[in-house]
């Protein structure tokens, strides 16, 4: 019984919020009606039985809930809402149009005029179907704060009239990239959770990010960056089982037990990367990142890693994204190829990353390899001070203490 509800929720939520938003022109009404329809299902299905077409039942119920609410609020002089009340309630919309609606919903939730925090919260709520308490817990924010964040975002969407439609062709690449950025933040929060007293991994968030990226890929099957993002997430998530030791300490890539990696996810990720290479189109940054992870995951051991190929890919990435974070990762790869001293010279030029813990962790490891122990210890101290992930802090502390 509850399985049917959970399955319907997973399969139908985004579609439903999307079609209700299109029909009633209001995200708030759509969200509330969808939630009420599922609450009704939880109440009724155990006694009445699961309807033959659960999706259609939920959609019809949600439409009625929305109309009920509009009737209740219809004191205002709003011709638009009156017009809705004379329509055929139960005619389902054609399928293709509904798929577009989910895409519209994603673009609205990830609109650049909203704060990044609001985009993440709205996407998880409206497209992912997570409840407010779930989202609040995932981001370690008190529930009322998360509720306010979502309410404020919905308010801005209405007041500033953030549109519910596909971006223009000119804007599309930038807007798709914006959606991918939101999904990747959700993924990263699951993969390297912040917070000094929480689980280091939150597989619920990585799974949700992957599910939403799969949805986006289904809607934009020809977009190379969407494919690249999905491959990237799969190839990173495949390593999750090897990533935290029983002691609770982070295990760096080089020391991971590769037999623990998820072979099915790796195969799927590699297939996506190969398809992108075959396309012959110039790759964007997520495709290059996916290719880098494909090199790592196709190497049977850390020692066999093809670092020259990884450096070449980072060279390509630096041209697409000349940020110091990318330069830092490139320096790490060069360190594997040309030694710690060469890498240190590059890293020392990236002092703008002073507030970014991987900068100090990288310096610490390189200084250690260059036998500059006391400088290395200072860098570990700084990295530990800044790191927010419990498993990573534990790892860094042990490495520092090994220096004596």
């Amino acid at each position, binding site marked *: 019984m509850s399985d049917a509800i959970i399955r319907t929720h997973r399969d139908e939520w985004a579609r439903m919020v999307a079609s209700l938003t*299109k*029909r*009633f*022109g209001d995200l708030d009404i759509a969200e509330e009606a969808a939630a009420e329809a599922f609450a009704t299902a939880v109440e009724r299905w155990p006694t009445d039985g699961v309807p033959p077409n659960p999706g259609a039942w939920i959609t019809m119920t949600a439409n009625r809930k929305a109309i009920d609410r509009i009737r209740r609020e219809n004191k205002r002089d709003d011709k*638009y809402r009156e*017009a*809705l009340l*004379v*329509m*055929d309630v139960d*005619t389902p919309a054609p399928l293709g149009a509904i798929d577009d609606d989910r895409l519209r919903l994603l673009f609205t939730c990830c*609109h650049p*005029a909203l704060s990044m925090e609001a985009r993440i919260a709205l996407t998880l709520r409206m497209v992912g179907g997570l409840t407010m308490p779930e989202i609040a817990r995932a981001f370690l924010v008190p529930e009322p704060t998360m509720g306010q964040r979502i309410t404020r975002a919905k308010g801005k969407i209405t*007041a*500033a*009239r*953030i*549109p519910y*439609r596909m*971006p*223009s062709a000119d*804007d599309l690449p930038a807007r798709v990239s914006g959606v991918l950025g939101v999904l990747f933040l959700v993924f990263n929060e699951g993969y390297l959770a912040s917070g000094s007293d929480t689980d280091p991994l939150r597989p619920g968030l990585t799974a949700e990010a992957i599910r939403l990226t799969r949805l986006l890929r289904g809607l934009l099957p020809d977009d190379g960056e969407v494919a690249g993002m999905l491959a990237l997430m799969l190839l990173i998530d495949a390593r999750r089982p090897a990533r935290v030791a029983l002691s609770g300490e982070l295990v760096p890539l080089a020391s991971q037990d590769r037999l623990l990696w998820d072979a099915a996810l790796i195969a799927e990720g590699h297939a996506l990367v190969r398809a992108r290479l075959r396309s012959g189109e110039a790759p964007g940054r997520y495709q290059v990142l996916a290719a880098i992870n494909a090199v790592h995951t196709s190497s049977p051991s850390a020692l066999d890693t093809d670092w020259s190929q990884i450096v070449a890919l980072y060279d390509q990435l630096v041209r697409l994204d000349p940020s110091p974070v990318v330069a830092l990762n490139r320096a790490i790869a060069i360190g594997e190829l040309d030694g710690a001293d060469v890498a240190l010279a590059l890293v020392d030029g990236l002092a703008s990353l002073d507030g970014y813990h991987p900068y100090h962790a990288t310096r610490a490891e390189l200084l250690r390899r260059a036998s500059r122990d006391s400088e290395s210890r200072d860098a570990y101290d700084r990295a530990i001070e800044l790191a927010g992930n419990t498993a990573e802090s534990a790892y860094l502390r042990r490495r520092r203490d090994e220096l004596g």
Partner: protein
Amino acid sequence: MQVKGGSEWAARNRQELIHMQYLISVIDDGQADSAGSEISGTAEEGAAIDVFNEKLQKQGSWVFAGGLGYPNNATTVDNRGESTVITDGPYVESKEFMAGFWIIEAPDLDVALALATEGSKACNRKIEVRPFLEV
């Protein structure tokens, strides 16, 4: 009564026929200081603004626009109490200030942001887009 396709019609009606108005504020973040004058725009900026204004008027987005004098010359009036309080200066002191504005009409924020993007290039200033309340 059943009107098929009514929702499509209603949504289009609302989104496309009833335009919103947006205030596009031009923000001075140091230009007047550098120019030593409240008239800080260059001749090129002025020419680019003329071109942009003409476009707004031609496509029906134009409502109103204007440049504003230095906030030092503002006077604040508060007549909520028993007597009117008149104060020299703007209601809020800040380094950045509104140096001018456009009021435009647009069907939604994406269109308004696209126009603001052009406007920012034309006047060579940072810009804020703010919706008017819908009546």
